[in-house]
């Protein structure tokens, strides 16, 4: 489960862009700034890596693993920092 403090979100979409398995999308509700905070896509592919939680500039996301739900883990798109692009 992803908990977003809607009114803290400024809509940078860094969480959506950088999620290694592309599990997030903009929601259809507007917060008081007129921003669409992120939500998990309908088909939940989140692997609870907590990357979005760590990188949100406004500390707006909390990741809480649903322990009972078992699902296939998607391969990560994450590439290491630095180095040469292949």
């Amino acid at each position, binding site marked *: 489960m992803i908990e977003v403090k809607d009114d803290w979100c400024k809509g940078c979409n860094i969480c959506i862009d950088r999620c290694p398995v592309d599990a997030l999308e903009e929601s259809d509700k507007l917060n008081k700034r007129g921003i669409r905070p992120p939500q998990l896509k309908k088909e939940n592919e989140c692997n609870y890596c907590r990357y979005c939680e760590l990188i949100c*500039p*406004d*500390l707006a996301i*909390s990741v*809480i693993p649903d322990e009972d739900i078992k699902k296939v883990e998607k391969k990560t798109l994450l590439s290491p920092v630095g180095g040469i692009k292949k």
Partner: protein
Amino acid sequence: MVEVKTAEELNKKFLREGMWPTIFCNGCGHGVVLEYTFWALEELGWDMDKTMFASGIGCSSRLPGYINADGLHTTHGRAIAFATGIKAADPDFNVIVFTGDGDCAGIGGNHFIHAARRNIDMTVIMINNFIYGMTGGQLAPTAPLGSIATTAPYGNIEHPFDICELAKALGANYVARWPVSHPYQPIKSIKEGLQKKGFSLLEFLAPCPTAYGRRNKLGDIKKHWAWYDDNTILIEDYDKIMKYGSVKEKEEVKDKMQIGVFQDIQKPGFFELYDQLMERLKVEENKKREGKK
């Protein structure tokens, strides 16, 4: 002590109530540095009543205001001088300085140099966004050649300051540089810097979409953040390529900004030496007194 597992719990523990959300623009990197520092502090389990923050003036220098701990929001460029004062008054305090490239490398440059040289016990977290963000985008001394700023409308012709190289040369105990765009290495590195006795410098490369990105045509927030992935290289990789790489590989990496831990040594800090000096003087004084009896 309750174990902190989520950002929600982290906020409750470290954020000063009522101060959030920040004044920072959408896509600004400053908030991320604060968050990484929180996770590092959480992992260390430091007593926040024994931890003090200091900062100068600038967007980056607003950070201590968001933390539920004592802090000094001081004058422009002087954070390190105040931090030295805190440490001198009570060496039991852990002192952390948040500062910007303008605040630390520009107006505060001399304070920085001498605190590093004296190896004063503190951790300086300098957020380098290549610009004076708060005042609307004047050229910072760290801005890469060619950067556009309000005071460099035709492109910067001044060679940028490499603050990590400087700190290294001055013999600071811990020196590291990281972009904010990946969380794991920075959190670990902040932890190492905080634990280190003596002077530690952590430089963060952070986007300022408003005053730097926009003028320098770095694109939207997503592209601006990706700039840091594409234009940095780990120091270990850089060294290997420069030693064994082909001409083409060397050409590719030669202008990238190196990131990583540049120095990790264990020189005695100023206050360690000061304590030893005091001990020595006490012994000598006592000897003199005994002689008089």
